[in-house]
C-alpha cells in the first residue's frame, strides 16, 4: 500500500461559526496564505444574539494588530469599551470590592519584590489595599483610562483589554478576512466524510450537496464539536454553576473601564460595559433558581434597566481531551468551555491559534505535532481554569449554601500548591504554559483577603521609615498620574465612539 502521509498540506478547511471561525480565518490567512496554503471557510449560521458581549485580555490588542484590524475602527464598529481589569464585588461579605487590574503593583525596593514589603507593612499596621499600588486599578476606580507612555515606565507598562459586542465583532473579523481574499461558503449544515479507517476527515458534504475536500480541518463549530469527536473532560466538579443566562441592560451614566463580577446569594453575575449597553452574564445552578428568577436577580443586582431579550442555556465547562485529533483541530468552544466569571475564552482561542501556527502540520503524518499541541493546550486551558476556580475557592461569604459549597470544593493540585505557597511566604509557584503571571495571582490572593503570616525577612534590611517613604512616593505618583488622565468616557469619545443612535 502506498502512503500519502508525506504529502504536504495543501488545503485547510475552517468550519464553524462566529468568532472562532473568523478569528481562525484571519490568523491562518495572515500567517500561511502566502506560503501556498489554500484556506476555505465554511460558515454555519450564527448562534449569537444581539446581547452577546465578549471580553478580551490585554494580548488581544496585539493579535488584532497582527491581523491588520485597526483598533479604533474596531471599537467603533462593535460599541467597544476599554478594560483595565476586573472588579470583584461581594466576594467577602461586607468587605469592599477589589480589583484584579492588568498590570503591576508597586515597584521593588532594594532586591526584593514590592509584594514582600507590602506583606511586612500590612503586619505593621498598614491599611492600604494592594490594588491601591496599581496604576491601572486606581485609574479604573476613578473612571479614568490611559495607555502606557515613557513616564510610567517605573510602574511597567500597564496593559488594557476591551469588551466587544459579539455580533458586530464577527462582522468586522469577517470583512477583514474577506479583504485578504479568503474563500468562504455559507452552509446550513454539513455531513462529515471520513477515510476507510474511519479516522481522518477527508471532506464535508454541505447542505447544498456541495463537497468540500481538505487536508486539515479546523473545527470551530462550538460546544458540540461536530468534527473533532472524542471525549470532553468535564470540569463540573470544580465549579458550582451549570447554567448561564445572557442579557443586556442599559449603560450606566459613565461606563467604567473594567468588567464587574458580583457575587450574589447563590450565583455570579458578570457585567461587561459597552458604549451603548451593558452585557450581563449570569451563572448559577438550576437547582437553586429558575431561569426567570435568574433574570430577575440579574436585573436587581445590575441595578440598570434591562433591554432586549435574555437567553438561558446549559453551562457545561470542560476541556476536549484531544483538541487536535488526527487531521482535525478544535478551536473555541469546540475545544474548551470556560466558566463565564472572567474573560478567558477569547484568550484561550487566541492561544490555540498561536500554537497551531507554530505547530502547523508539515504533512499528513502529524501525530507528533498533535501530541505537542495537546500538551501545550492542556497546560494553557488548565492554567486559565485554575485562575477562575480560585475566585470561587477563596470567597468569604459565610453561611450562604452556594458560597460555603464553593469554599469546600476540592481544587486542582497546582492551584492548591499556589495557595499553599502564597500562604506560607507570599510567593507563587509558576508553571509552564500559564497565561496569568505572578502579578495577577498576587492581585487576586490579596484581593480575596489572603495575607501570608510570614514574609521574606530580607525586606527588613530596608528600614521601616525608608519603606514608608517609598510607599508614599508610589501612592503620590499614582494619584498624580491618575489626576492627569482623561476619563474613560473622553477616551471613548476621542478614539472609539461609534454612532449607535
Amino acid at each position, binding site marked *: 500500500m502506498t502512503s500519502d502521509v508525506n504529502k504536504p498540506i495543501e488545503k485547510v478547511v475552517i468550519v464553524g461559526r462566529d468568532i472562532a471561525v473568523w478569528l481562525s480565518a484571519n490568523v491562518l490567512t495572515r500567517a500561511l496564505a502566502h506560503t501556498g496554503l489554500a484556506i476555505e471557510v465554511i460558515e454555519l449560521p450564527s448562534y449569537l444574539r444581539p446581547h452577546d458581549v465578549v471580553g478580551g485580555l490585554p494580548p488581544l490588542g496585539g493579535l488584532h494588530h497582527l491581523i491588520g484590524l485597526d483598533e479604533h475602527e474596531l471599537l467603533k464598529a462593535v460599541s467597544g469599551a476599554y478594560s483595565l481589569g476586573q472588579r470583584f464585588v461581594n466576594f467577602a461579605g461586607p468587605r469592599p470590592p477589589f480589583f484584579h487590574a492588568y498590570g503591576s503593583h508597586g515597584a521593588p525596593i532594594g532586591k526584593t519584590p514590592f509584594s514582600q514589603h507590602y506583606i511586612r507593612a500590612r503586619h505593621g499596621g498598614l491599611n492600604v489595599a494592594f490594588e491601591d499600588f496599581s496604576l491601572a486599578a486606581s485609574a479604573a476606580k476613578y473612571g479614568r483610562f490611559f495607555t502606557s507612555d515613557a513616564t510610567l515606565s517605573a510602574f511597567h507598562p500597564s496593559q488594557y483589554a476591551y469588551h466587544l459586542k459579539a455580533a458586530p465583532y464577527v462582522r468586522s473579523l469577517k470583512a477583514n478576512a474577506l479583504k485578504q481574499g479568503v474563500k468562504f461558503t455559507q452552509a446550513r449544515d454539513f455531513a462529515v466524510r471520513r477515510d476507510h479507517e474511519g479516522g481522518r476527515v477527508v471532506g464535508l458534504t454541505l447542505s447544498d450537496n456541495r463537497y468540500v475536500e481538505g487536508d486539515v480541518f479546523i473545527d470551530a463549530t462550538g460546544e458540540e464539536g461536530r468534527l473533532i469527536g472524542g471525549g470532553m473532560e468535564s470540569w463540573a466538579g470544580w465549579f458550582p454553576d451549570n447554567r448561564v443566562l445572557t442579557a443586556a441592560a442599559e449603560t450606566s451614566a459613565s461606563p467604567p473601564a473594567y468588567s464587574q463580577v458580583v457575587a450574589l446569594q447563590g450565583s455570579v453575575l458578570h457585567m461587561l460595559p459597552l458604549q451603548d449597553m451593558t452585557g450581563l452574564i449570569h451563572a448559577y445552578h438550576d437547582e437553586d433558581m429558575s431561569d426567570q428568577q435568574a433574570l430577575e436577580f440579574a436585573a436587581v443586582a445590575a441595578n440598570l434597566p434591562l433591554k432586549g431579550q435574555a437567553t438561558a442555556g446549559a453551562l457545561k465547562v470542560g476541556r476536549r481531551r484531544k483538541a487536535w485529533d488526527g487531521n482535525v483541530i478544535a478551536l473555541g468552544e469546540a475545544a474548551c468551555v470556560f466558566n463565564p466569571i472572567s474573560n478567558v475564552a477569547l484568550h484561550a482561542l487566541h492561544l490555540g491559534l498561536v500554537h497551531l501556527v507554530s505547530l502547523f502540520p508539515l504533512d499528513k503524518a502529524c501525530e507528533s505535532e498533535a501530541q505537542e499541541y495537546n500538551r501545550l493546550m492542556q497546560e494553557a486551558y488548565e492554567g486559565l481554569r485554575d485562575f477562575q476556580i480560585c475566585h470561587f475557592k477563596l470567597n468569604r461569604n459565610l453561611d450562604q449554601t452556594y458560597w460555603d459549597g464553593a469554599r469546600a470544593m476540592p481544587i486542582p493540585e497546582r492551584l492548591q*500548591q499556589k495557595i499553599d505557597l502564597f500562604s506560607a511566604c507570599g510567593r507563587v509557584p509558576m508553571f509552564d504554559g500559564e497565561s496569568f503571571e505572578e502579578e495577577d495571582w498576587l492581585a487576586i490572593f490579596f484581593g480575596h483577603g489572603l495575607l501570608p503570616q510570614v514574609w521574606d525577612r530580607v525586606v527588613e534590611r530596608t528600614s521601616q521609615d525608608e519603606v514608608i517613604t517609598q510607599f508614599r512616593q508610589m501612592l503620590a505618583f499614582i494619584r498624580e498620574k491618575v489626576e492627569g488622565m482623561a476619563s474613560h468616557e473622553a477616551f471613548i469619545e476621542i478614539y472609539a465612539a461609534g454612532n449607535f443612535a
Partner: protein
Amino acid sequence: MKTPPHVVIAGGGTAGWMCAAALSSVLGPDLCRVTLIESSGIGTVGVGEATLPHIKEFNSYIGIDEAEFMKRTNATFKLGIEFVDWNKPGDSYIHPFGTFGQAFAGTQFIHHWIKGRKGGYAAPLEAYSYAIMAARARRFEFPDDDPDSVRSTYAYAYHFDASQYAAVLRAHAEAHGVRRLDDKILDVQTDANGGRIESLQLEKNGVVKGDLFLDCSGFRSLLAGQALHGGWEDWSSWLPCNHAWAVPCESGEPLTAYTRATAREAGWQWRIQLQHRVGNGYVFSDAFIDPQTALDHLLRRLEGKPMAEPKLLTFKTGRRSRAWNGNCISVGLASGFLEPLESTSIYLIQVAINHLIQLFPHAGMDARLSAEFNRRVDLEYDRVRDFLILHYHANAREGELWAYARNMQTPDSLKEIMERFRRRGYVRKYREGLFADPSWLAILVGQGVMPEGYDRTADNPGEDRMRAWLSDLERRIAVNVEAMPDHADFVRDYCASPILAEATS
C-alpha cells in the same frame, strides 16, 4: 527579639562557601547565624572550574568585584564550550552563550536557516552566532548594551581556579560574620524518628546544634545521605561515566575564551585554560576503559608539562530524591552529580541558593516551602540531565561506550525533543531554567540531528530577500568580530593575576 535561626553548613569547597557567602551577605546576621565546618585535612573536589553566565549575577548579588575576583582566581573569559569529535571524529562545534541570528518576519531564525540550508544558500549555523565567531577568533570584549546591536547577542562566564574562588568567598563570608570551624564531623545526631538533624559531633569543637543544616559534604553526603538515608535517583544507565582523572598542565595554546570538551574512546576530555595553567581531565566509565589506560591516554594527550600529580575522582550520576528533607538541604555534589560536560555544577549550587533565599524558613520548617524548593530544584536537574544525555546519545562515533549510548533507551522527555527537532526544528520553550532554545539548537545540530522540515511561515519572506538578509547578518557578525580585542590582551589589561603580570612583563 528571637535569636535568628542557626544555619550549619557541613563542608567547605565551592558549594559550602557559596552558601555561606550568599546567606551571610543577603540575609545578614539579624536573619541567620551561619557556621561552616570544614576540615583542612579533607581535600575538595574542585573540578568546577568552568562556569555559566549566571555566575555573574551571583557575584554581583553578593557584592564581589569582577576584575578583582578574576585577578585572584587567575580567571579567563568564556563564551561557550567547544565540542570536538563528539558527533564523529574531525567534527567541531561550539555551544555558545548567545543566540543564533534573530527572528525575521515573525518566524524564528532556525526555520529560515533550515530553509536556507536546503536551498544551499545559508552558511553553517555558527556563522550566525556572534559568540561562536568571537570564540573561534579568540577574541573578547564585554557585550554591548544596545539591544539592536549584534554585539549585544551574547553573554559570558569565566574559567577560574575553584579553590581560589572558594577562598574569595570565604574571605567575603567571614567578613560578613560567618563562623568557620576547622574540624572533622565525627557523628550526626538525628531525632528519634531519624527525620531531622539535631546536632553534629565534632572532633575538636564538641557538639554543634543547628536549626537548618546544609549538606555540602560532597559525594560522601554525611548528613542527607549517611545520616538521614535520603533516597537517590540513579541516572548512571543514561550517563555511565563514573570516574575522572584530573591534572593541570602548562599551556601550549594562546588564551582561549571557551572550554573544550573532546570526545574520547570511553568518555571525554576537558580543557579549561586559566591565566597560569590549563586544567585537564578525562571523564570516563570504567566499564569501557580501565583507569590506568585512561590516565596514560590523558597524560599522552596533554598540551604541556603536567603541573601536579593526577587525581582520580569517583562518582555516580543522579540526584537526591528530596534535596530538602526535614531540616537538611543538600547542595552541590551531595545533592546530585552531573558530569561537568556543560559546566553546570556551580550553576546548580547557585540555583539551590537562590531558591533557598526566596523560600528561607524564617518561621521554622514548613513542608510547603520544602515542597516548592524540591519542585524547582528537581526541574533544573532533570532538564540538565536530558541535555547531557543528548550529547552522548546522538553520536556517529565508533567504540563501545558510543555504541551503548547510541542504542540506549533515553528518557521520553528527550525522545520527544529529538523527534520534533528532527521533524521540523521545533524546540519547546520553558518558563524557567536551563537551557533555552539556542542551546538545544547548538547541540542538536552539532550532534548531527538535522531538521528535515521547517515552519511553513518561513516561506513568507521569499528566497531572494532571505538570501540577502542572511548574508548581511553573516557579514555584520564577521566585521564586528574583526574589531574585537584579542582575548589574551583583554585579560592582561583587565584582570591580570600577579602570575600572569610577571610572565608578560
